[in-house]
């Protein structure tokens, strides 16, 4: 249970791109991917290790946000990372990425790490969006990119963990104010004390470094 940090993620993207399946696939290894079963969940948590530190990822599916502006706003603001998912077999889900990204950029804090995910990479025969297109989109907008398959579990681990690594690096660089829980990062309960020196140092750095 003990963790050094807790990172809150959100998953965004059109309906039906496999967000909740990705989430379940990552958070609960006991659910084995099977061909005749589509199963997902709206919330999940899992512990990972980065740089020898226990980090807890808490992932919130943003289902239900579509109808209410207030909900969209708040979700983005409270997250340190976002997985922006599209379906490689449906061109329209890729075309909507710009809108999703605009929303995300407008409402989130500027440090939020966004990972672009082309899901359903197992359905190669029905592919409508080339991998290169995803890569180009990610490059253009400064995102990390990966193609995954919730069905075969391919790259799912990596997608979540690489996002966490990026957030972790930003913390090390002092970009994130970890004392501010509104950023979607929480210091672990028992680490709060030991981290206070680090936090203090970081706070000072922030004040000084805030000018650039």
């Amino acid at each position: 249970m003990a963790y050094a940090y807790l990172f809150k993620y959100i998953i965004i993207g059109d309906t039906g791109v496999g967000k909740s399946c990705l989430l379940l696939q990552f958070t609960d290894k006991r659910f084995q991917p099977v061909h005749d079963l589509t199963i997902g969940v709206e919330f999940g948590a899992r512990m990972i290790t980065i740089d020898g530190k226990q980090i807890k990822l808490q992932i919130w599916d943003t289902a239900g946000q579509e109808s209410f502006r207030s909900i969209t706003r708040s979700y983005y603001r409270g997250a340190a990372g976002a997985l922006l998912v599209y379906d490689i077999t449906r061109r329209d889900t890729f075309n909507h990425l710009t809108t999703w990204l605009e929303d995300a950029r407008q409402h989130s804090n500027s440090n939020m790490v966004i990972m672009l995910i082309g899901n359903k990479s197992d359905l190669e025969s029905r592919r409508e969006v080339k991998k290169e297109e995803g890569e180009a989109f990610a490059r253009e907008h400064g995102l990390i990119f990966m193609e995954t398959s919730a069905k075969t579990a391919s790259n799912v681990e990596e997608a979540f963990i690489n996002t966490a690594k990026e957030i972790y690096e930003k913390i090390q660089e002092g970009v994130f104010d970890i004392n501010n829980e509104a950023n979607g990062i929480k210091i672990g309960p028992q680490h709060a004390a030991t981290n206070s020196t680090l936090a203090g140092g970081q706070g000072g750095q922030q004040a000084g470094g805030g000018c650039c």
Partner: protein
Amino acid sequence: MFGRSRGWVGGQGKAKNIHSLDHLKYMYHVLTKNTTVTDHNRNLLVETIRSITEILIWGDQNDSSVFDFFLEKNMFAFFLNILRQKSGRYVCVQLLQTLNILFENISHETSLYYLLSNNHVNSIIVHKFDFSDEEIMAYYISFLKTLSLKLNNHTVHFFYNEHTNDFALYTEAIKFFNHPESMVRIAVRTITLNVYKVDNQQMLHYIRDKTAVPYFSNLVWFIGSHVIELDKCVQTDEEHKNRGKLSDLVAEHLDHLHYLNDILIINCEFLNDVLTDHLLNRLFLPLYVYSLVTQEQNEDRKINPQVSLYLLSQVFLIIHYQPLVNALADVILNGDLTVFTTQTEQNTHKTSANSGVRRFTKPPESLERSLEMSRHRGRKKTQKRPNYKNVGEEDEEERGAEEGADEEKAKEIEMVVMEKCKISDVSTLTEQNITDEEKSAAAAAGTEEQRSRPFLDMVYNALDCEKEDYHALFVLCLLFALSHSKGINPELLEKIQLPFPGEDRSSYSHVLVERLIRVMNHAALPDGKVRLATLELSCLLLKQSVLSASLHHQRRPSGLSGGCERRESSSSTEGEEIFLDMFEDEYRSMTSKPLNVEYLMMDASILLPPTGTPLTGIDFVKRLPCGDMEKTRRAIRVFFMLRALSLQLQGEPETQLPLTRPEDLIKTDDVLDLNNSDLIACMVVSKDGVQAQRFLAVDVYQMSLVEPETKRLGWGVVKFAGLLQDMQVSGVEDDSRALNITIHKPTSNPHAKPLPILQASFIFADHIRCIIAKQRLAKGRIQARRMKMQRIAALLDLPVQPSSEVLGFGQSSSTSASSSSSQLPFRFYDQARRGPAFASVDRVPGFAVAHVAQQRSSSPNSSSSITAHSESITMSGVSTHSMSGLEARAGGVRFLSRTMPESGFRPPHPGMSALSLAAFSSASPRRVH
């Protein structure tokens, strides 16, 4: 052990066995054998529950008999049984995950009905989990959210029981409305919105009668508490250190407003009544509006006026619900302090001291307790459920239970009272309107009996920006928001005459316009403390006030602003060569990013006192300028804004700006008649080694590379065209026939690295042609820039010198300009003919230094001009022009000496605004009705 082995085998062959009715039967068997949770069977149970989930979802998608079996054997009851054994975190989490998955993934409506039909779900909802565990909390609230997404007019009956008046999904969820974890709060909001969205009258009545008052009063208190924290954050700030925290608090406030707005736009009328009542009488009026006025009894004042102006602007920008914003606006525009006292008299039969009065007070009891009470009452002495939150409140609770019936009655009465008050409010407000009309009529007749409007007075007074524009910016935003709100009755706004400027009975519009002009006056001072955002907003509002009125109203204000712009911009022309680039840059960035008031009001940084330093990271338009460069930039922007305003007020189109209009330029693929043009053949070698044979042509503003047109002799097709002013030419060291030419794309961001649109070496036939080309380009560049500077000078109404004074250059340029521009639709043509007055751009390295020295001596604050000289290197080698250059310098100095007295401080004419106002008001004696 079971789950373990399964994990290893995986695979499709085995999976088939696992996902089957038989396997579910086996799982059922396991459950019946393990009805009591022990340390030994815990893992087995967890894996069993998990497997059941998986089979059920598989069954829903592939084999419905699986589902039938689950229901037949009432397996849900086993879950409940396990849950009630206080079986610990591990099992709880598994169960909650199972439920989440179950309700998230079920696709068949009948399956859903079956799952909901036996009330087990409600039992699970009211189960007291250990909510101190963040994971359980998260799974639990996600579970409720998942359920709320399934709500519709049919399914709502599974959750709301009209006989017992129970709606656990809703009441349990709202208990967490102020949970410290933001994701939980968001989930609660989603749940409530999903509930309100269901159009079921009975359910909604229940919500209003039993939960609305406790929930909304607590919500309002919660929002208000955040506001007070926000205010404290502003008050205790030193040197902008609190900005991080402040921006969170501001974002939080915005979240709340958007949430409230989301509720209001669902448009459930009777819920909105209660919410409006609470917002208005418990938050917006007593906390925000009341704080606008400085009172002797300071202890009542809760927050700083600038904070309250800021927050009110946000309210009006986000919420457009008519009954709410109209009543709020009415108090601000017409109300006085009696709105905080009169109501008390009406509530003679009220029981609790603080209900009905417009006061920001803590709700008498916690939301949780209110809901408990209401449940007790509904059920007549149900056993009180243990409650992790109010441990230690036992006595109170019991007493409360005894008095329950009375309190309930009291509450119902209270609600009726509040509704009554609302109605009487409205009527008194309309009464006030009438008296206002009478009074302003009286005012027009000259017998001014000033009715006290402390809030409006405060708003107007805060527009004063002699020392700073801290408050003024917020006031302008508030006025902007008020006038753009769809929910405000237009008649109300006649008081400030924003959208209805034709109406001139009220004396206030004059006050407003006068204040706005005063803001502009201050902005136009060289050291005015008015930020660009403030100026832009006041221009917007002034336009809005007077533009739709008949034309002769407008003369005076525009004349005034013309005065401002001239004074201001002339002070800044020491910017020299870079001035032109800045001038065009500022124009680009200003037009590409017009002010968005809603975004401006989302920025917490303006809540802190205005600062000048860019080190804060605050946007240029939202702070004061820092250093000469920024002062110049600011002056240029002020000029643009006031010029645009002035033109618009006079109904004249802009013909001079931008200096370069894209439609006037030569573009790639244009076909030009080049007979009688000077063309130099050359080989263009681009950076990546691509070679092309081209002809170089130098035009007034542009250089172009052309290819002969095949069909018409003497005509050419443009392959590239670039602005001479953005060009840099340099020789190539070991090749006397070659030149390196770079042309940068103009950027609107002064910090961005200039992006080259052309970067190539040009190889000519011999060194003579090379020198000719170089000279022509260099001269062209100077001329292009000078002509633009002339146009700027003309724009600023600076004195233009007769061309005879600058003979050497003047002649050549005017001839070449007139000859070449005769073919082109450049708008400055007339000015060009007048000859160059603005020679300070023409500088060759040789005397640039001298020039600087001279400038230094003549103007103490021209240090910024040094930066300008780096560019003049392109001129080296133009020896033939040294004479004319000297002339030019002389002209430059003359120019400077001429502008210096102008640039000195001239305070705005004290009578000017008053004068213009007088003229303005005398020009509008008519009444429009």
